C-alpha cells in the first residue's frame, strides 16, 4: 500500500493507505478525527469541508494521496485544545448557527474560506451566495448567515491565514 505523509492540524502524520482512500476516510478512520463528516456522496453537501494548504476543499472528493505533503486543517485544529475558541466557532455558538451540529464543522471551515476570499466585512448576499457548497437541513440558514457575518467581523485580519496554515 502506498504511504502518505501530510501535516494535519500542525502535526506531521503518515499512513499506509490504498490509493482509493479519500482524504475524509484518512482523517476519520486512520487519524480518528471524526469532526469532519460525510453527508452525501455527490460532492454537494459540504459537511466534509476542510482546508488543504489554506484553501477550503471537500475532503470527500480528494484522495488522501493527492494531499501528499499538504497542510490540512480540520475543525479539530481551529482552536488550541485548552485555549479559546476561534472567533468563528464562538460566533456560531453565540448566534445559534447550529442545531443538530452535523453540517457545522463544514460550515465553519467554509465560513473561514469566505473570509479569506472576501474579507472581514461580509454582507448577507455575499454570505448566502458563498454558502452554495454547504447544505444545512436544520437552521434555514438564517442564523448561520448571522454567525458568519459576526464571526468574520471578530476575526483579526491575519487570523484566517493562521487558521489555515
Amino acid at each position, binding site marked *: 500500500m502506498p504511504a502518505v505523509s501530510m501535516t494535519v492540524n500542525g502535526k506531521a502524520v503518515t499512513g499506509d493507505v490504498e490509493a482509493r482512500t479519500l482524504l475524509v476516510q484518512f482523517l476519520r478512520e486512520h487519524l480518528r478525527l471524526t469532526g469532519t463528516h460525510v453527508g452525501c456522496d455527490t460532492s454537494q453537501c459540504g459537511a466534509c469541508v476542510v482546508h488543504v494548504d489554506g484553501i477550503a476543499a471537500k475532503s470527500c472528493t480528494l484522495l488522501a494521496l493527492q494531499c501528499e505533503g499538504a497542510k490540512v486543517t480540520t475543525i479539530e485544529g481551529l482552536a488550541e485544545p485548552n485555549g479559546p*475558541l476561534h472567533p468563528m466557532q464562538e460566533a456560531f455558538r453565540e448566534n445559534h448557527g447550529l442545531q443538530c451540529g452535523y453540517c457545522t464543522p463544514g460550515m465553519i471551515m467554509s465560513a473561514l474560506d469566505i473570509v479569506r476570499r472576501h474579507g472581514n466585512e461580509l454582507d448577507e448576499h455575499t454570505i448566502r451566495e458563498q454558502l452554495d457548497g454547504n447544505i444545512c437541513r436544520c437552521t434555514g440558514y438564517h442564523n*448561520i448567515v448571522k454567525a458568519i457575518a459576526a464571526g468574520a467581523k471578530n476575526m483579526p485580519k491575519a487570523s484566517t491565514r493562521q487558521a489555515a496554515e
Partner: protein
Amino acid sequence: MSATGIGAAVRRKEDFRFITGSGQYTDDVVRPGETRAVFVRSPHAHAKIRSIDVGAARKMPGVVDVLTGAQLATDKIGNLICGWMIHSKDGTPMKMASHPALAAAKVNCVGDAVAVVIAETYEQGRDAAEKVKVDYEVLAAVVDPAKAQAPGVPQIHPDIANNTIYQWHLGDAKATAAAFAAAAHVTKLDIVNNRLVPNAMEPRAALAEYDAGTDNLTLWNTSQNPHVARLVIAAFVGMAPEHKLRVIAPDVGGGFGSKIFIYPEEVVCLWAARKLRRPVKWTADRSESFLTDAHGRDHVTHAELALDAQGKILALRAKTIANLGAYMSTFSSSVPTYLYATLLSGQYDIPSIYCEVDAVYTNTAPVDAYRGAGRPEATFVVERLMEVSARQMKIEPADLRKRNFIKTFPHQTPVIMAYDAGDYHASLKKALEIADVKGFNKRRRDSARHGKLRGLGFSTYIEACGIAPSQAVGSLGCGVGLWESAEVRVNPTGSVEVLTGTHAHGQGHETTFAQLVSERLGIPFENVSIVHGDTDKVQFGMGTYGSRSGAVGMSAIVKALDKIEAKAKKVAAHMLEAAEGDIEFKDGKFTVAGTDKSATWGDVALNAYIAHKFTGAELEPGLKETSFYDPTNFTFPAGCHICEVEVDIDTGKTDIVNWTAVDDFGAIINPMIVEGQVHGGIAQGVGQALLEGAVYDKSGQLVTGSMMDYTMPRAHDLPSFHVGLTETKAPSNPLGVKGCGEAGAIAAPAAVINAITDAIGTEDLAMPATANAVWSALKRATPRQAA
C-alpha cells in the same frame, strides 16, 4: 427572569462539542473488531427473486460472511411492523403486508435489501457485494398512487386486493353534502402534495455488538426514540428479550421524522453481530438514504369548500389518496388519517367536514411521518381553499379568514379535535403589521416596473402537537401510549441529572430542559445535566416527534421536580427542626416561615444522602424522583405566515423577498431556540413549495436519487425571516407550552404557493414551483386582472 432561567435566550450547552468537532454520532463510535455491513439492494422496483448466489462474494478478500433473507427466516427473525391500527369504513382492519428485513422471495421497491455482506472494511464489502448474483424475474411496477387501485394494475402484495391498505373516513358525509347543496359558492381544487425526501444531514447508521458472556446485544443507532426501537425489535421482530437489548442513540444529526422508524438495517446488524460474534456497523451513503429512508407527504387530493354569499364557510370535504409506498413503515398509517383529517378545520369555525382517505401500496420507498406529518398536507388543503375562495369571491384573503376564525375556546371541531386556546386575530394582526401588507400594492407596482410579478400569500395554520393523550390515541388505534417519562436525580453535592425519555437531534434539550430545572430549583444552569438516548440509563420513554418534547417531556420533568421539592422540604424540615408545612422553598433556599432559619439547596441535598438528621423509618434517604406524565389534550400551536415573492416573467424564477412568521407557541422557555426551530421549519416548507420533489419514473426508478437532482434548499434560496410571537398558554400542561418544531414546515408551503399564484394570476400551479413550472403556468394562464 434570570439570565439562564425560563424565557432567557441562553446559548446552548451542546454547542461546544459540535463547533469543535467532538460530537459523537453513530458513525464516530468504534468498537474493537468492528466489521462493516454492505447491503445488496434491488435495482428493480418490482421483481420475484428466483435465486441468490453468494458463493463468489463469500470468497472475496476481507469477507466475513454473506447473509440472505432465507437465513433470516431460518433464524426466525420477525418482520417489521406498523404500530397504528386503522380500520376501513366497512370496519375491516388495515392490510399490513409482511416486511422482512431482507427480502427472500420478492422485492417491492428499488433499494429493497436482498442480502448483506459483512466484511472487514467498507470497500471490501462493496467489492464483494458486486459479486452477489441475484436472478430476478422483473414484474411491471405501479408507482402512481392515483392509479394504484385501478383494475389490472400490478398487485404488489399477493393477498391484498387492489393495493389498498384501507379506505377510511372521518366526519359527517350527509351533513356535509347538505351544506354543499345549499352553498352560494363552492371552491374546488385538485392538489398533489409532493413527495419529499427528509435528508437529515447525518445519514442513518447502526452499529450492533453482541456480548457472548452476558448474551446482551447493544445497538447504537440514529434514532429519535431508542426505547420504541428497542420495544419493537424485542417484542415484534423477536431479536432478543427487551432486557437483553440496549439501544443507544448518541448525537443524532437531524431526524425530521425519518429517524422515528425502525428500519431493516438495524435488525440485520443486530442479527449479524450475534451470528458472527463481531460488531457490525452500517452507515448509509446518501444514495442509500434516498432509496431507503421513509419519504414524506405524497397525497393526491380533491378538495371542496362551501361558502355562503357573505363568505362564511359552511362545509369542507376532501378525498385523498395517500401513497404509503411498498411497505407500511412504523407509524405510516396514522399520518394521512388522524394526523391529517383531524386538522382540516384549520383556524376556522366549520360546521361540517367530511374526509375520505384511501391508503395504497406502490412500488416506491415507504412513506411515513416527515416534519409536520399530515398537518402540512391538511394546512395546504385548507389554506389553498381559503385563498382561492377569497380570490373567486373577490374578498380580501385576510378578511375572509377573519370572517371565519374561531373566536371562543374551547372549540370542538367536527373532526375530533377540541381546540383549547388560541387567538387567531392577534397573530394575523401582528403579521399584517410586520409584513407591511399595507405597502404591498406600491411594492407590486415597483416590481412591475422591473419586469417582475409580485405576489403575497397567507397561511393561517393550526397544528396539533404535544402528541398525545394515551387514552385518546389508543381509542384511535395507536399501539403505544404517548406519555413521557422523566427522572430527576439530585446528587449529594446538589448538582442535578435529569433523565428524559425524549431525544434531542438538534432541538437543544440539554439547554432548554436545564433552564427549566435551573429556574425551578434555583440552582446554577451549569449544575444541571440532561441525559437521554440510552435505554440502559433512562427509564422507558417515548422519544421525540410531533413537537412533543416540550409539552409532554418537560411536563414530566415538572412533575418529577414537584416530587423532588416535596421530598426536599421534608429533609429541610428535619434539618431546620420545623414542621414540614412551615418550610418554604424559593430561589434555591429553604426557609422556615416567619423565621430567619434557612438551609441552602446544597445543604438539603447533602442531608438527604447522609441522612444524619432523620431515620429511615421517618423518611427514606436520597433525593431522586420519577414521573410519567400523560397529557390531557393535544396542544394547538397556530399562527400566521405571510410570504412575499417576486417572479421573473422571463424565466419563471421565484425569489422570496420577504417572510413574516407570527406564531403562538404558548409559553416560551428559550426564544432563541424557538426562533431557530421556526427558521428551519420554514426552510423545509419552502423547499417543498419551490424546490423539492421526489420523482419516480413509470418503472419505479427514483430519478431524483441524489442531491444532484433533488434540490435541497441552500442559503441563497431563502431570505432572512421576520419572526414574531403571540402567546396564549396551553391549558393542558403545567408550563403552558405548545410546541414549535413543525410550525414552519406546516405553514410555509401554502404561503408560498398562495404568493406565487397571486403574482402570476393563475391557480394552476403544482409543487414544487420550479422556474420551469412557473414559466409554463404563466404561458398557460389567462391572467387574472391584477388587484
